[in-house]
C-alpha cells in the first residue's frame, strides 16, 4: 500500500537534503580550487592544496598523533568494553540496572567538562603526561559506542551455544575466543570503526589537553584557520570526508547503514 505524501512535504525534504549535502560539496569544490583564497565554484582545478597539507609540519605531526590516539583509545575501550557488554547481557539478572547507565555516563557528562576535569585533576594534579590524559579522555568518549554496539550484537547471540561448548569441556577463555567473538565479529568491527571516527573528530575533550608540542588534527585545523584562510583547511576537510566514506562503507558491510536509524 502506498500512501501519498503532500507535495509541500516532499519539496521541504528536497530542500533539507540540499541543506545537508550542499555545504560539504562546497568544501570539496573549495579544496580543488587553484586560488590562494577560499572560493566556490572552484577557479581552475588543482591538487596543490592537498600537497600543502603535508608540507606543513604541524599537520603531519597532528595527523600521526590523532591516529595514535584513535587506535589506542579505541583499543582500550574495546578491551574493557567487550567484557562489560558481555557481562551486561550474560549476567543481566545478577547485575544491578545502574551498571549499564554507568557505561553511558560519558554521553551525559558534557565533553568540555570531561576534558577540563582531566586537565585539572589528572594531568595537572598528578602530573600525568598530556598524551596519556588525551588517550584516557578519548577512551571514555568512545566507551558508550563500544558497549552499545557490542550489546546490540550480543542481544542476538544465543548463549546456549556457549553453554554447550563449556559443558562439552571447552575452557571458558577458549570458548570466549572461539565461540563468542566470531559470532559478534561484525559488532566488534563496527564498534571499532565508529569509535575510531568519533575519536578522530573530537574537539571538545582535546581542546583542553593540547598545547605546545602536542595537538590533534581537529585542534590544528582550528589553529590554522585562525591564521590563514587558504584552501588547506578545505583539503584537510576533504581527507576527513574520505575517511567518513570509508567508515560508512565498512559499517554498511558489517551492521548495515540502517543501524543508524535505530
Amino acid at each position: 500500500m502506498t500512501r501519498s505524501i503532500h507535495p509541500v512535504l516532499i519539496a521541504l525534504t528536497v530542500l533539507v537534503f540540499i541543506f545537508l549535502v550542499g555545504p560539504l560539496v562546497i568544501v570539496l569544490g573549495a579544496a580543488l580550487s587553484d586560488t590562494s583564497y577560499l572560493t566556490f565554484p572552484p577557479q581552475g582545478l588543482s591538487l596543490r592544496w592537498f600537497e600543502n597539507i603535508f608540507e606543513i609540519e604541524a599537520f603531519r605531526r597532528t595527523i600521526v598523533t590523532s591516529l595514535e590516539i584513535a587506535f589506542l583509545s579505541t583499543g582500550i575501550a574495546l578491551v574493557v568494553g567487550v567484557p562489560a557488554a558481555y557481562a551486561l547481557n550474560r549476567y543481566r539478572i545478577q547485575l544491578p540496572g545502574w551498571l549499564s547507565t554507568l557505561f553511558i555516563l560519558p554521553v551525559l557528562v558534557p565533553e568540555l567538562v570531561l576534558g577540563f576535569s582531566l586537565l585539572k585533576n589528572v594531568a595537572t594534579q598528578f602530573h600525568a603526561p598530556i598524551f596519556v590524559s588525551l588517550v584516557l579522555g578519548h577512551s571514555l568518549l568512545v566507551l558508550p559506542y563500544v558497549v552499545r554496539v557490542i550489546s546490540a550484537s550480543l542481544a542476538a547471540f544465543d548463549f546456549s551455544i556457549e553453554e554447550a561448548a563449556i559443558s562439552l569441556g571447552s575452557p571458558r577463555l577458549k570458548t570466549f575466543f572461539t565461540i563468542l567473538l566470531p559470532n559478534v565479529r561484525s559488532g566488534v568491527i563496527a564498534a571499532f570503526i565508529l569509535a575510531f571516527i568519533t575519536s578522530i573528530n573530537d574537539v571538545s575533550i582535546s581542546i583542553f589537553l593540547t598545547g605546545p608540542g602536542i595537538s590533534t588534527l581537529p585542534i590544528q585545523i582550528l589553529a590554522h584557520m585562525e591564521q590563514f584562510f587558504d584552501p588547506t583547511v578545505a583539503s584537510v576537510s576533504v581527507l576527513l570526508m574520505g575517511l567518513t566514506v570509508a567508515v560508512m562503507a565498512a559499517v554498511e558491510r558489517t551492521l548495515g547503514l540502517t543501524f543508524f536509524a535505530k
Partner: protein
Amino acid sequence: MKRFAGWTLSTPATLLVVVFLILPVLATIVTTFATAAGPFAPYLGFFGSGFRRTVLWRTIQVSLATTAISVIIGFLTAYVVSRSPGWLKSILIIAAVFPLLTGVVVRSFAWLIILGKNGILNSALLSTGLIAEPLSMLYTQGAVITAMVYLFVPLMVLTLVGVLEAIPDDLLQASASLGARPSATFMQVILPLAVPGLIVGAVLVFTGSFTAYATPQLLGGEAQMVMGTLMYQQAMVTFDWVSASTIAAIMVVITIAIVLLMTRVARRLNPMAT
C-alpha cells in the same frame, strides 16, 4: 559464582569510568564549593555578573532555537524518509549519515565559507544585485543557530526514522479504514506515537547545543560567547580555573537535570506504555 563473574568482567570498564570520569568531574565541582571566599561565592559571582548572565541566557536561547528548528525539520523529513520506497530511503539515510559522521570542525568550516564576508552567499547575492554591499552574517546569533541546526538535523532525522518505522502499518490502515483523512492520521496517530522519540531527540539536540564549543567558537566568536566558549576562555586564556569549574558545574547540573526530567516525561507520554 555467576554474580562474581559478571562483576569481574565489568570491573575494568567500571574503574575507567569511576577513576577518570566521575572522580575528576566531581573534584571539579567540589572545588567550586571550597573557595576561600565562601562556599557559594563562585556562583554568586557568576550570577552577579551581567556579562555572564547574558552568556547563559544567550546559550539557552541558541539551544532552544536550535532544538525547535531541528525537531520540526527533522520530524517532517523523517516522516517523508520513512514513507519512501526502499532504494530512495537508503540514499536518503546515506545522505543523513554522511554529515553525521563528518567532524564538527569540517561542518562548521563549511558554514564559514558560506557565510563569510567574501563568502559564497554574499557573492551570490551581490552578483544577482539583491544587495549592494556584502552583509555581515558571521559572528551573529543567526550564524551560530544555522550551523548548529546543520549539526543536529541528521541526528534528529535518523532518530525519528527509527521511531516512525516502528509504528505498525496496521495502525495507519486501521485509522484510514475508519475514515480518517491522511492529515488526521498524521496528527492523531503518528504524532502522538512519535512524541517519546521527539523528546529523546530534542534532549540530545538541546544538551549538545548547550555544551557546544567548536561551532559557536568559529561562527560566533567573541561577539556571541556561549557557555562552552566562555568556559574555554576562562580555563585556557585567563587561567581562572575556579570560574571555569563554576561554568562546568552549571553545565553538568543543567544537562543532567534536563536528561532526567525529560526521560521521565517521555516515559509518561508514551501511549504504547502499559
